[in-house]
């Protein structure tokens, strides 16, 4: 059974408000397969050149897998990393 979106999400959808302005949201910008910027990163849970696990908003974890992954910059809740990115996997905290 499909889970019903919360009130804030429904309100934003109704009013066409960008989700980025809501607290707890996150986003990813991938530049090719070499660079990734994650907005709304709350914590770096683990780091390895082959896999990085980030805690992002909404109780979600983002697993980035690839080769020679390396953080390049941090700033205002965003992290930028580079390397050969193979996959992005979203996981719920409970999983």
């Amino acid at each position, binding site marked *: 059974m499909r889970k019903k979106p919360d009130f804030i999400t429904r309100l934003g959808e109704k009013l066409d408000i960008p989700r980025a302005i809501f607290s707890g949201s996150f986003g990813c910008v991938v530049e090719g397969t070499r660079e990734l910027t994650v907005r709304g*990163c709350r*914590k*770096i*849970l*683990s*780091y*390895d*050149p082959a896999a990085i696990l980030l805690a992002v908003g909404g109780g979600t974890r983002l697993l980035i897998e690839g080769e*020679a992954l*390396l*953080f*390049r*910059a*941090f*700033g205002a809740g965003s*992290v930028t990393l580079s390397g050969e990115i193979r996959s992005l996997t979203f996981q719920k905290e409970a999983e």
Partner: protein
Amino acid sequence: MHPVLFLTGFVTVSVPSAAAGAFFEMCRACGYAFRSVKNTENGTLYATFSALTARRVLRSSALRNLPVTPCVQGGAPTLLRRFLHRPGLVAGTVLAVGILLLSSLFLWDVDVTGVETVPEAELRAELAAVGLSPGAFLPRLDADALAVAVRRADPRLSYVAVNLHGTVAAVQVRESVETPPRETPRPANLVAKCDGVVVLPLIFEGERLVEAGDTVRAGDILAGGVIDTDNNGLRVTRAAGEVLARTVHTYTVRVPFTYEQKAYTGRRGYEMAFRFFGWEGNFLKTTGKLTGEYDIIDFESKWSGALPRAVPVFLTGKTAWEYTAVPARRTAKEALETANAELTALLAADSATRTLLEKTVEVAADEAGVTLICTITAEENIAVVSEIAVP
């Protein structure tokens, strides 16, 4: 490297692979921006921070028990700190800057133009005597007064101008042209300077006493300065003219088989001095150790680099190469070649005043050397002036 990072100083820290995640999380949470980061093959992470940020990173790492260790420090503050720990270097730099600033107050060089017959070294010595030499204090130099002083000191100069261009003095001179005093011509004969057969006597003044075909000896009068006139008696004059005559000359060149030549011993002596503007200080002299003869090579290590003129700070000195004279022997062929070369040089030296008509060369050799006997027949002017005393 970014110039700002160099100016502010930088620190590179190393982080073991096991702590890399916690290190990144600390940087993210605290907002520590690294300038560069790289991962080595063994997993150790190297991140470079500005010196200020690095201090915070190390402090935060210590609080979190992260094994972060600084491994490289660099940039201007580090260099300055190292520099300040060497008092000799600091003193030398201060001294060099001081000399550089003060050197603009002193004369670096003197350019002299316009000298033709007066030796430049003498002129420079005269300029130095009146106070115009490298090292002179520029604010006290009065160019006009110096020019007047030099002109008065040396009668060979008719005009002297001194122009100061920055730290260089340009001295322009014009030498005096002396008019030879007009002298009353004194009576003289034309006499033969050597034996010969007269070919063409050309007498412009005086009484001609020889004809073409006459044989004359050295010292014979060719044209008389005393003329006996029918109406006015004896008249004296200065005989002038040319008497072309056929002459015979003999040259003898002997070249021995044995001779002495220089053999350098390999020992060298030095004399070196440091010259700073007009001041010169000797600091090395080893020529006193040489016992034999030596050749001297002078040198000056003037440095100009990209500058239009040499810097007035340089080394000067000389190198003496010791040698001994050792006996040597040349072959007959070499001796003959040497003799021919010497004979050619002798003939060339005399060729300007005579026309060569005939040349015979005899070669005589003995156990000691080679002798060339060269006889030449030439045509030349044999007349020379011989003044006569008139009571």
